[in-house]
């Protein structure tokens, strides 16, 4: 793995997360232990200050679990998360401090706001709890400022969430996350529930906040076009592993992993002159509780040969471009 020149703001080192599965009747009868579900397998990545790393993959690939492990919702089974070189997973780290440095935006704008709190109440609460501002006037000013920051008229602050549309709710969630002035934001599919015209508004807001407030994003999404637009670097996940990681343009122009290539060709382009007849990828992702031996992708891979089935692959690197494929970087 190439050494990064800057000190990373966030570093994930060798992170794995397995979930124990419930024993079913057949397990008890056959006296077997159920296979644990390996949601995330040995993920290592870094985020430089001010950069956006996109994390893409299909449902069940472990991208959300990875985000939640970093945010501290799940205890990693193995591996460590570092924020500015300090350990922020496992035991003995300051949760309160972590919450002031790292926040999360969720997918569903309808479930991410407490339906009983007005916008003002939802935004005041973190400021009060952390004592960031004192006195009614100062807190109210800060709430107005937060609302303007995310493009909402402060006059709407006494409304309950049900008065707002999906896009507006997502703005409120963003404002709430910004209340603690964090450096890192993990955004878990923040625009996938929105219509395209609204999605564009929110994506622009993310870009705008990054340049104005110097935020660093881990942007989790399944839509490659969205991720390409927002990210400097992109990591592709498949069955709990990062299978390719590269600069965003490089990943799109010179994908090395056959899975990345399949994702790109499956992406329906809004251009009827570029139609393809062949299906991009046959089959479906395997069950994460019993991943195939060898390369995780070998059962669906058009290039797979005996070596792929025999042995799991490490990430191969060329510069900052890594791909977990035996055939990667061979063509030139």
């Amino acid at each position, binding site marked *: 793995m190439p050494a990064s020149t800057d000190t990373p703001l966030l570093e994930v080192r060798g992170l794995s997360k397995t979930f124990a599965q419930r024993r079913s009747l057949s397990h008890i009868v056959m006296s077997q232990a159920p296979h644990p579900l390996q949601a995330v397998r040995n993920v290592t990545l870094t985020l430089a200050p001010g950069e956006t790393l996109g994390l893409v993959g299909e449902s069940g690939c472990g991208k959300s679990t990875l985000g939640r492990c970093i945010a501290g919702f799940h205890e990693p089974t193995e591996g460590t998360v570092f924020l500015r070189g300090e350990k922020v997973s496992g035991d003995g780290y300051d949760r309160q401090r972590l919450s002031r440095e790292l926040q999360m935006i969720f997918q569903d704008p309808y479930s991410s706001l407490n339906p009983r709190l007005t916008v003002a109440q939802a935004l005041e609460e973190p400021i009060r709890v952390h004592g960031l501002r004192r006195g009614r006037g100062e807190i109210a000013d800060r709430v107005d400022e937060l609302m303007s920051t995310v493009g909402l008229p402060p006059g709407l602050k006494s409304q309950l969430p049900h008065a707002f549309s999906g896009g507006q709710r997502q703005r409120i969630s963003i404002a709430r996350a910004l209340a603690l002035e964090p450096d890192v934001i993990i955004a878990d599919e923040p625009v996938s529930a929105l219509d*395209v015209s609204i999605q564009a508004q929110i*994506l622009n807001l993310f870009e705008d906040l990054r340049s104005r407030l110097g935020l660093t994003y881990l942007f989790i999404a399944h*839509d490659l076009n969205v991720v390409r637009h*927002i990210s400097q670097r992109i990591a592709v996940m498949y069955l709990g592993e990062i299978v390719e990681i590269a600069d965003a343009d490089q990943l799109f122009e010179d994908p090395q992993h056959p899975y990345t290539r*399949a994702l790109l060709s499956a992406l*329906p382009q*809004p251009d*009827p002159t570029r139609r393809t007849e062949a299906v991009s*990828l046959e089959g479906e992702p395997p069950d994460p509780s019993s991943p195939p031996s060898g390369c995780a992708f070998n059962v669906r891979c058009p290039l797979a040969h005996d070596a792929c089935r025999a042995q799991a692959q490490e990430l191969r690197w060329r510069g900052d471009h890594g791909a977990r494929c035996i055939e990667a970087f061979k063509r030139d």
Partner: protein
Amino acid sequence: MAPLLSVRDLVTVFESKTRPVQAVDSVSFEIREGEVFGLVGESGCGKSATCRSILRLFAGAPARITGGTIEFAGRDLTCLSEAEMTRVRGREIAMVFQDPMTSLNPTMRVGDQIAEGLIRHESIGRRAARLEAIELLKQVGVPSAEQRLDSWPHEFSGGMRQRVLIAIALACRPKLLIADEPTTALDVTIQDQILKLILRLREQYGMSVLLVTHDLGVVAQTCDRVATMYAGRIVETAETPSLFARPLHPYTIALLNSLPGGKKRSEPLQPIGGAPPNLADPPPGCRFHPRCSIAVEACRSTAPALLPVDAPHRVACLRRGAEPS
């Protein structure tokens, strides 16, 4: 040749506590035989209500068709009795829904669910229906169809369930397949498989497809012709290549411009300001005028008609031909 389906001035109203909502407002379009017709728009634009009106399937919602005709293979569906509609549904027009997880009955084996329609509509025996079901599962690309016939829905993944639903829809060889967001709940590689499957089956059975989607990429990849809907009305309709090469309605243009991925990353996207109107209280005149960048005074009062620009390409805009400022 007469079109297979011809919808004229369709109006569908949903009753609500406060005031009736006109979800479909004088919608007209035609689907020719063997064609894939796309209906595209954002949530709440009336695209689903339109296709539910065709089958008169409102799932218990208090909806009524209050105007217009739906001519299908020479008959006006709005004039049929409920009993006659039951014979049309499934047999002549079949439908595939968005959510493959809830569209199958969890307490019935997959094979029985496919055979059910055959036995009811085609009056064939159980054995024959079973053989036919195996054939259908093979057609839609379910591997080892003979064994999978006796599986339960929960043993199938989302993509496989959508294949089963398509098999059920195809069972009676419908002339028209209505697919309402059939791939929205699926991952992109599975979406690709299902869309290609629908295209292959269209060739094979010579049926027409009405594809409802919010995804312009899906439209570009699969549809022959397309209509854009906004706030209950069709605002533009054209052959797919023509719509993407030269979109005419400001809404279609704005929708295409707001898609990420096309442009360079450094440039901000061009979102459409504002939000779609509340259909219980739509703006007067052109419904897009509050969000339109080229709206003029007349747009506030006059609802534009859907008029041809060049033969098949029609647009409902008073400022058609005007350059966006």
